């Protein structure tokens, strides 16, 4: 059995504004290394909320979260930032590239922040990641010169730069047409197969979910099947 990389124990969350509504009820599950997991469910079922708790960005919840067998619940903002930097890669619905930097620099940024390798090494790695995603030719372009699909691939390359333990995606294909969606899906698929990369993708694209290794289906803040 592969080791567990992420484990949620009894995670619940309430929104307090304007009235208290519980959106997550005792979420309990774990993800093992190399798994390609998708979280599906109707709009408003709490799947994105869950993702942001798992990503350590949302700290207002009850229950316990373990990443790499380490309890992250209750850690300080700075420590959480470090965990995100080192262990989690993000791909969002929108690409969120920084328009002030070229593609290569965008990919390098989290690596520069981690500050474990020299600038040249990070640059070399960034080029490798861009090659994996087939967009090394665009490395020196600015983000606004790329197509939507290319931008999303740059965002994936960026999420890979620090060799994260897990990549989390929030509707990464939500803004893409069929063709580009397929490209992104194929990239994910390849990452799990060739690099044993763990992936946790929130999506409401049922076709996308059906092709993943494991589907966590949510409804009204509860996991109904996983």
């Amino acid at each position, binding site marked *: 059995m592969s080791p567990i990389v992420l484990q949620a124990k009894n995670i619940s969350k309430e929104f307090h504004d304007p009235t208290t509504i519980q959106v997550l009820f005792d979420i309990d599950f774990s993800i093992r290394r190399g798994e390609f997991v998708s979280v599906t469910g109707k709009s408003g079922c709490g799947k*994105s909320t869950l993702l*942001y708790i798992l*990503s350590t*960005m*949302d700290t207002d919840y009850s229950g316990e979260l373990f990443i790499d067998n380490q309890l992250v619940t209750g850690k300080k*903002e*700075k420590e959480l*930032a*470090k*965990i*995100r*930097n*080192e262990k989690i890669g*993000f791909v*969002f*619905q*929108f690409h*969120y*590239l*920084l*328009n*002030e*930097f070229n593609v290569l620099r965008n990919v390098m*940024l*989290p690596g*520069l*922040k*981690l*500050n474990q390798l020299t600038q040249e090494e990070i640059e070399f790695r960034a080029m490798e990641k861009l090659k994996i995603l087939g967009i090394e030719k665009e490395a020196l372009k600015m983000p606004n010169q790329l197509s939507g699909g290319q931008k999303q691939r740059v965002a994936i390359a*960026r999420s890979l730069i*620090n060799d994260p333990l897990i990549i989390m995606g*929030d509707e990464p294909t939500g803004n893409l047409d069929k063709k580009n969606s397929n490209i992104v899906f194929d990239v994910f698929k390849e990452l799990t197969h060739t690099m044993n990369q763990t992936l946790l993708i929130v999506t409401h694209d049922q076709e996308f979910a059906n092709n993943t290794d494991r589907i966590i289906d949510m409804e009204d803040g509860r996991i109904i099947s996983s």
Partner: protein
Amino acid sequence: MKINLTITIAKSLLLARWKQTLIAAIGVTFSITMFITLLGFMNGLNELLDGLVVNRTPHIRLYNEIKPSKKQPIEQLKTSDIQHHFIHSIKPNLGRTNIYNSLAIIEALKHKKEILGVAPKVTAQVFYNVGSVDITGVINGIDPEVEKKLFVFDDYIPAGNSMYIKNIPNSIILGKGAADKMMVGIGDNVQVTTSKGERVSLKVVGFFQSGIQDIDKVQSYCSIATTQKLLGVDNNYITDIQIKLHDINQAPLLAKKYGEIFEIDALDIQTANAQFETGSSVRTTISFAVGITLLIVAGFGIYNILNMMIYEKMDSIAILKATGFSGQDVRNVFLTIALSIGFFGGIFGLIFGFSLSALVDQIPFNTPALPTVKTYPVSYNPFYYFIGCTFAIITTYFAGLFPARKASKIDPVIIIRGK
């Protein structure tokens, strides 16, 4: 986080909005420029006005005051409880106005290390004779060399040369006001009558103009020897010993000390000219207030621009935080932006401030009261440049601090989910 990375991110954010950045920096530049120019000009004026008095006034003056003796002879007599002296109508005695043992005192003072220099002076009351009219005047017997060194004497000699009074016997540097009254020029002779009734003819070798009309009408300068001759006294006769110190602030303390040591009257400059200090400090305070106001206004400009930048860059901040940049990192980025605006704006402000000061320094400024001043006075005291630069950095730091803190508190979840 590495400083390099902070600077790289700050720089690219700055350059992305370079027009706004430029405007913010120009705001700082403008305020520093005005701050420097204003303070330079104001202090130039201060120094000029203070100089009128301070340059020409000794820090400590030793002299004999004409006054009744403190201890009347009758007081030597012991009194019992029921007896008391009543002395009416005490008058000053005809004491000596010259300083007893003056040459020894001067010699002693010259060896004290807190003293910059000692200048002896003899004052003689005279009348300038113009036809049948007598004008009262005062002749100061001085050593022009020492006077030049300690009291910038030459600045107040618009015509002629101060050294002539030493080298030409029976010569005088006449007050400009007195000279105008007598209608004499350089090379002419003037008649003066001493208080003892002697008439002497003196050759005019220069004019003295302090800028203060009342002084120029009365004061004239001769060498010490000439003045002693006018008074008919020997060469020990010195009425004033003028002392210039290294540190003007020590004057009151040292005046008291010397007064006790030499048993003589000692007057310090602070007591003699209290009002000048007040005027200077008020003017300086006003300039500082105006300068700081300008900087604070510039600070609000920076605050606004950073706030706008943060709203525009909300997405970038969110993704930086999502990918592992901490709130502190984000804050540092925005503080770097603010400080670099302050720093570069400030540097240019110093350069422009210096240039503008230099320009003001060239503007003609002719006033009959100040013969040696031809252009507006400007001070280039590095202290104001230092203060200007420091204030620029401090103001921009605080202007940047609040937007930077706001940026650091942005919750990436809200931004990312909002799309």
